[in-house]
């Protein structure tokens, strides 16, 4: 940052003057002049600034407007109604300094001198370089929170000013013919007394200081705020201001504090900002563009690369006229722009609007994370309902049936459940159930089913009675459009049969090892929970050594296969046949792999619905 710099410019190019101020210059000197500053700055509320210009340049008067403009930029709570008053006073003071002080034109513009004579005298003096090059020093600074001062110092001979009394000033008339109580003062000075809150002379009359009460107390927070965010969010918001000009940061900070924000962090460049965001994760960032080390656009890039800061609003301060700069800011990830000079109400409106969006997104994200955590817990609970490895191993041991299960719960919760019921050393019961719908409701129904089953244990040996009882238990619990498809079978080694009852579950596929063919098992039946007192049919098929039964949830035939269509029962049967010759371990593994491959689920993809596949093969 440039602390003390002389910036060379010409008054013919006022844009260079703006540029000088913007880049942090404290002192400016016209390129054709060669004057040095004559004294140090007064420390003030905002930085005191000084312009040293020649009589020739000061006479162009545009300088007064530049001074006012600069004050306007630096003061967030500037009262615009004072602009004209200050401008008039400053014009008058500069004119006095140039014409009476430096150029020595003593005639004042009164009724006895014509305006033409007066200006001729000024033009003649300006034609003499010795006079025209004399410096005029303009200083402006702030004292306390309320007073703004200008001083205009000329290089002339000074004049013997008289002390004044406030009542004299009050009584002084601007009418040129009226008696003048301030003998040493011309009419212009009387004008200044009427415009300014403080008028003081120093340096033998060469310096006039004009004071204005300009700063209102910062507006109450509730007049600045549009109330878009809650008091709690306002209290908790961390706002990071990134700007290499400390007065610029100060202005923004002052506005934010006055609007009730409490956590304001400051960084002088993008590099500082990036280390600061680690310590105080910001809720919003306001950044300048031109800064050393890491500029505003690079900062936007870096922030957007941080996964946890993708949504942090970034407001970029730009020159509003430069459309390319503005577009560039958006391309680098800025959410909004704010033009300089900063206006307090506009800044707060933008900050609140973006914080509202940020906090809403954050709340949604937190909610989503919480729900995801809860769903994950529920999924784990759902998984715990399934047979364990030990349960499956016991089937092989006891009932001589090799069982393999594949269960892929959807990202949401689902209504699939399957299980085994070892009934005796020669009988193994098993079921597969699918409740309508997905999500929490369907999952809760699987828990209802699990809870209802133990009380029905007496019916485990008779599939039809088991389904009848289950229907009676579920019918009052389920709403009209909810139901469960169900299949319950018992593999009986002694009789060599599979006896079963079904309630509309997807048709199991039976591999008949004797004939080396597959067949669909009739699983039709009104789903559970649809009609009261429904009675289910008991069916049976032969089930001999080396026979296999495949049960599955509807996801297997409804999930769109890689080929773009649904997998059909015939395709599943054909795959079963293809792997049937192998020992059960290999056959189960390969078949499940083939099925998942067909559906395109091998590369970590998931079916949108729960997918359950279970294979049971009788040992030889």
């Amino acid at each position, binding site marked *: 940052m440039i602390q003390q710099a002389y910036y060379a410019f010409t008054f013919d190019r006022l844009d260079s003057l703006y540029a000088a101020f913007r880049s942090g210059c404290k002192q400016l000197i016209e390129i054709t002049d060669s004057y040095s500053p004559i004294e140090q700055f007064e420390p003030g509320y905002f930085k005191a600034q000084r312009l040293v210009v020649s009589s020739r340049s000061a006479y162009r008067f545009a300088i007064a407007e530049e001074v006012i403009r600069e004050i306007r930029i630096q003061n967030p709570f500037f009262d615009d109604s004072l602009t004209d008053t200050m401008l008039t006073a400053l014009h008058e003071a500069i004119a006095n300094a140039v014409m009476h002080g430096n150029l020595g034109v003593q005639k004042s513009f009164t009724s006895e001198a014509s305006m033409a004579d007066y200006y001729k005298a000024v033009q003649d003096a300006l034609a003499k370089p010795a006079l025209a090059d004399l410096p005029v020093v303009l200083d402006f600074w702030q004292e306390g929170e309320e007073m703004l001062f200008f001083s205009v110092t000329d290089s002339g001979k000074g004049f013997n000013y008289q002390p004044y009394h406030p009542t004299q000033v009050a009584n002084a008339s601007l009418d040129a013919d009226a008696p003048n109580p301030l003998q040493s003062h011309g009419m212009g000075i009387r004008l200044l007394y009427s415009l300014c809150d403080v008028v003081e002379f120093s340096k033998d009359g060469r310096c006039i200081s004009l004071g204005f009460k300009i700063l209102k107390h910062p507006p109450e927070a509730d007049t600045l705020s549009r109330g878009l965010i809650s008091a709690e969010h306002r209290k908790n918001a961390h706002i990071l201001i990134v700007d290499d000009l400390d007065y610029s940061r100060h202005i923004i900070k002052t506005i934010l504090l006055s609007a009730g924000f409490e956590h304001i962090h400051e960084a002088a460049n993008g590099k500082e900002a990036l280390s600061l965001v680690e310590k105080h994760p910001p809720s919003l960032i306001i950044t300048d563009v031109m800064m050393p080390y890491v500029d505003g656009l690079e900062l936007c890039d870096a922030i957007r690369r941080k996964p946890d800061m993708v949504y942090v609003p970034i407001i970029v301060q730009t020159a509003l006229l430069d459309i390319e700069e503005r577009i560039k800011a958006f391309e680098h990830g800025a959410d909004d722009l704010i033009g300089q000079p900063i206006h307090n109400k506009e800044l707060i409106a933008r900050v609140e609007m973006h914080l509202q969006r940020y906090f809403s997104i954050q709340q949604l994200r937190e909610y989503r994370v919480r729900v995801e955590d809860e769903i994950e817990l529920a999924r784990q609970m759902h998984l715990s309902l399934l047979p364990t490895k030990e349960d499956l191993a016991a089937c092989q041991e006891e009932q001589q049936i090799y069982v393999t299960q594949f269960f892929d719960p959807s990202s949401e919760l689902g209504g699939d459940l399957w299980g085994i019921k070892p009934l005796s050393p020669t009988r193994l019961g098993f079921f597969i159930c699918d409740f*309508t719908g997905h999500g929490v409701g369907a999952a809760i129904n699987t828990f209802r089913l699990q809870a209802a089953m133990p009380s029905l244990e007496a019916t485990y040996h008779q599939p039809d009675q088991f389904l009848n009882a289950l229907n009676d238990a579920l019918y009052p619990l389920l709403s009209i459009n909810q139901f469960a*498809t169900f299949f319950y079978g018992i593999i009986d080694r002694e009789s060599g049969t599979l006896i079963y009852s079904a309630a509309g579950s997807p048709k199991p596929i039976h591999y008949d090892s004797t004939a080396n063919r597959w067949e669909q098992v009739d699983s039709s039946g*009104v789903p559970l929970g649809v009609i009261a007192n429904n009675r289910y049919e008991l069916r049976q098929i032969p089930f001999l050594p080396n026979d296999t039964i495949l049960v599955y949830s509807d996801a297997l035939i409804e999930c769109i296969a890689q080929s773009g269509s649904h997998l059909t029962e015939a395709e599943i049967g054909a795959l079963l046949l293809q792997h049937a010759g192998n020992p059960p371990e290999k056959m189960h593994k390969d078949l499940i792999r083939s099925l998942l491959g067909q559906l395109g689920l091998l590369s970590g993809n998931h079916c949108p619905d729960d997918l359950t596949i279970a294979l049971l093969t009788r040992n030889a």
Partner: protein
Amino acid sequence: MKIHEKKTADTLKVELSGSFTFSDNQEFRELLKRINEKPDQKVIFELSRLEFVDSAALGMLLLLRDASETKGIKIELHNPQGQTKKMFDLSNFSALFSIHYDDE
């Protein structure tokens, strides 16, 4: 799914076509509401162009059945084909609905 309604004197003919899944929930419930507003009418669902139903769709049809039982509305399902017919057969819908085929 597309729902096309055609009204005659005392019969409402509703043609369903395409895939009938959970995502049709909202639209089907609105249809159901309209049907429920006119008790004692006959509603024929033409299903020959309905290509796919999932279990949620069966659930919605069960809501329809409930309406027919409680409001005295006569519901007929006509010409289920392909996967729709398979799902109806599997769930024994013939025990729950009056199902008709044009060629019978």
